């Protein structure tokens, strides 16, 4: 058993768990935060995306015991049904989902991605590695390609992110 302190959505949690427990399963099975989804358990789909110390990660690919003291933001920390973030509201308005299973991962991923772009991080489709990163549709699509959606709400995911990123800038 490993003793780990996780700071999730601003609240400290003491976790006593098997060292094999992934961050994803710690959130879902131990802390009851089931908003973060398990789609593949192998870092292939992005449904488990959470924000650790400001960066988006696949929580299925990292063990909980490696995050002692880390600040973690999950979908539950981004907004609640009656207090949605601008991005969450945009996903509802644009129908940026259907079954909704990949959606928390999409939203956590996009929340961090907008910050990455603001910090000037380039992507595979950026023309210039040094310049500011404008979130064109192609940039949004590329930067969100680690989050699979089998319902294929991709056009509306782009629409939602474009709107929310535009409102924030």
């Amino acid at each position: 058993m490993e003793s780990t302190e996780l700071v999730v959505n601003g609240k400290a949690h003491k976790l006593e768990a098997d060292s094999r427990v992934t961050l994803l399963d710690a959130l879902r099975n131990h802390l009851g935060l089931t908003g973060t989804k398990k789609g593949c358990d192998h870092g292939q789909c992005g449904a488990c995306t959470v924000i650790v110390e400001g960066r988006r990660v696949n929580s299925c690919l990292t063990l909980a015991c490696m995050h002692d003291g880390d600040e973690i933001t999950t979908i539950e920390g981004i907004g609640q049904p009656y207090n949605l973030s601008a991005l969450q509201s945009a996903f509802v308005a644009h129908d940026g989902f259907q079954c909704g299973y990949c959606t928390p991962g999409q939203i956590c991923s996009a929340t961090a991605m907008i910050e990455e772009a603001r910090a000037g991080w380039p992507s595979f489709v950026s023309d210039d590695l040094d310049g500011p990163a404008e979130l064109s549709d192609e940039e949004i699509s590329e930067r969100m390609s680690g989050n699979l959606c089998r319902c294929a709400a991709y056009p509306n995911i782009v629409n939602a992110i474009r709107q929310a990123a535009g409102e924030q800038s």
Partner: protein
Amino acid sequence: MNAHRKMDKPDTRNRLDDMSQGLVGTAMDRPDGPLKVSGQATYAHEWEVPDMVHGVLVRATISKGRVTDVASDEILADDAIHAVITDDRLLRRPAQGGANEAPPQGSKQVDYFGQPIALVVADTFEQARHAANNLKIGYETEGNAAFDPEAAATETDKPEDDQLDQGDLDQAMRNAAFTVDQVYRTPGHNSAAMEPHCAIASWEGDKLTLRGSYQMLNFNINELADALHISADNIRMLSPFVGGGFGSKLGLSPEAVAAAIAAKEIGLPVCVTLSRQQVFETTMRRSETHQHVRLSCGEDGVLTGLGHECLVSNLPGEEFYEPVTQATHFLYGGKNRKLGIEVARLNRTCGGSVRAPGEAVGMQVLENAMDELAEAAGIDPVELRKRNIPEQHPEKDIPYSSRRFTEALDEGAKRFGWDKRNAKPGNLREGDWLIGHGMAGAARINILSEAKAKVTLLANGSAVVETDMTDIGTGTYAILTQIACDMLGLPADKVETKLGDTDFPAGPGSGGSWGASSSGSAVFLACEEIRRKLADKLGSDERDLELADGKAGTGEPAQSLAVILDGEEISAIGHIEPGKTLEDWQQATYGSYFAEVAVNAITGETRVKRMLGVFGAGRILNEKTATSQCYGGMIWGIGSALTEELAFDNRDGHIVNHDLAEYHIPVNLDVPQIEVVLLKERDEFASPIQAKGIGELGICGAAAAVTNAIYNATGIRVRDYPATLDKLLEGLPDQQQ
């Protein structure tokens, strides 16, 4: 109170057009949206069930034979391990959609590689997974397994009622001005819904509660009861949120029965979730297909003959086969016809329904062949299709119900700018990219399914809709709310729709695109009955009743519902059954696709630059969710065209690419901004709400628009899907220099 209707006659009243609340058809946001975007929607694995333990299924690593030994004792030495289940009731295969009875059971016999053969239950998921990985299994293998559908030694059979030989196709081919005679192949597909299958079983005495991820609870409850040898009255199944299905959750799958058996045996609730690899191996695959298409026409391009003969595969004993020719039977004319299906019996994962079984791959190929015929005859592909829309059904003496195929073709061509297309292949280049344009027709049969729904108008003037129908992302919560709102004159926040609970009246389940029109009709009928009761209270005729914004009256809505109800509530169960209109009219949905692709002249990489779909599917109940369904279908079409392929190892039949890293579904950057146009249509033969199915129409031919565009860009016909780089490289102009 029951309101029953058998759909024996068309319903020409179009009542939903007259309701003043006016929500049906609008792009209303999904009422379940805020829960989904905030992670609060409860999917199968996410119920808080006290004392729950975890089970992990163990898979067979042979493809045919028997399990002779399961070394349970070694595993059970660990205190954390509760049980190793090898019960004869474990499912060997998943149930087919609508089976309504248990599929083959008993895991001692092995039919395919990856088949579940045992369940290991432990305190935690990590312990169960570790023990399951270490469980030693002894086998006795049988050497006569079959893995290759096209091998000479593979046994095949032909379903009798799916063979058509009409006129003389051979002669038509000989006498034709233009012909196409080609073999096309499509690979197997996996549904790959984002939520893996999961079940939590808990018992209280003889009563079982099963929380799972299923599409058709009305059938699944009977499949589970039959598998466990108990009465369905003792089971409650819950699936209020389903993380995608696409056919893979139509029938009961192995985790449900395993969880129920284990929970009973150890006396604790048990959760069993399939790993992504198990989803590929133990749920349904779409069969690969081998399709021989023959088309013959005169100088005018009008078909004189049509052949569509297909080889698909499934496990021995399975009645389901991919109904590849389903739309070929009615879409185009040609009086000499030979259509048939042959099923190869293989030791591969069970073949079953994957989004739009039949048309998804049948239309994909038929629409490639039509493109080839258009070129051979020197006729524009849009025009060729329009010339071959038959006035009379080419095989049966029945009329068509509403059919907007011509309009979809014309509207699509206009919006896409089809007239500006360069018809000569390989003639348009931008830098390293070869640009091409292609189109295809869309068609999918329409089905109405028996459905019940209960609607209760509460004394406070709000309403509740209840049915065991599911919402697998399709928008059921939205459309049933909208129908009840319009029929009862209530704003959206005054209607609550409750789904996915077998304690509610039996819905039709989500599948075959019938969910919305069938469950929507049941809600409509229940609401009509409530309107009659309200009219009685007001002493008026139901047809004169005006309802809006929570008020009712004759002529104009004047009195609040709460006042009229005076403390009473009114409840009714609507019950729709399919009838003569489904047999006596050919019902289907139609559309068109137009695509622009860029193929890299050096690497052979294809990018879809632009895609348009125009669809006619009867009354559209929610413009937003219907559009999203069409996006989904068309993007599946992009996947079918370019990347999706189940790869089998023909030495032992195992799926080589059994995860999302190796089975390539489209990602965000693979998809451009897609345009979807929904034609205004009312199909009075389809349902009392004049709606037809739309969930699958988007895929039924979409891939052909992409590959026809690849041909236009490069001059290369890929007849062996998917059109990966290796199949284009050799024929690219830069390689030939």
